[in-house]
């Protein structure tokens, strides 16, 4: 069974551009979570989608947005990129939004903003 897959693996953009990151959850999982892992800052919660709806959002500006498609895959969009957006973006999935479920993580997309 395939795990959580993220694409692209690496993404290089310049300031002001837009970035789109994609995530496919494990088959049967309906919840998708996005985290930002910036150097030295640990994992910061970005967004949580479940059943196509945004359920929760971390302390990030509105230029960070996303959506979840009917097949439960998800996109993270970052508009007006800034240098400090450079980070590893991790996607995780769970069968549902139950808090006692472990998160299944993808390998991440390394976004570099030049």
């Amino acid at each position: 069974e395939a795990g959580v897959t993220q694409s692209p693996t690496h993404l290089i953009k310049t300031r002001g551009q837009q970035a789109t990151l994609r995530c496919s959850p494990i088959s049967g999982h309906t919840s998708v979570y996005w985290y930002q892992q910036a150097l030295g800052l640990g994992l910061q919660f970005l967004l949580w989608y479940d059943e196509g709806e945004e359920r929760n959002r971390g302390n990030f500006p509105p230029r960070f947005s996303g959506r979840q498609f009917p097949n439960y895959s998800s996109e993270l969009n970052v508009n007006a990129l800034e240098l400090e957006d450079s980070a590893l973006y991790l996607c995780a999935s769970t069968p549902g939004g139950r808090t006692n479920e472990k998160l299944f993580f993808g390998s991440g997309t390394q976004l570099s903003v030049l």
Partner: protein
Amino acid sequence: AQSVTQLDSQVPVFEEAPVELRCNYSSSVSVYLFWYVQYPNQGLQLLLKYLSGSTLVKGINGFEAEFNKSQTSFHLRKPSVHISDTAEYFCAVTPNTNAGKSTFGDGTTLTVKP
């Protein structure tokens, strides 16, 4: 709101030595506690979790953790480490009333030397 503090950013140890990675948390509600491991260029994998019951939790790869409610700690231990345990370790908490929003510590880099 909750917060997680991993007290050591770097822990170097020699192979076959015991190790303890420390994690303290604060929360105004009851939480579930997790330890994840991240190997280079990979996403995070669950090591173990505490939901309820026995305060000593055993996980994969010989790791265990003890939940101490009075000290609000969830320290990770292994009696004898291997070179292959070299990785970054993250402590995380999830409130049992707010699905989806796990809070992670900043991580502890464990380096096992021969």
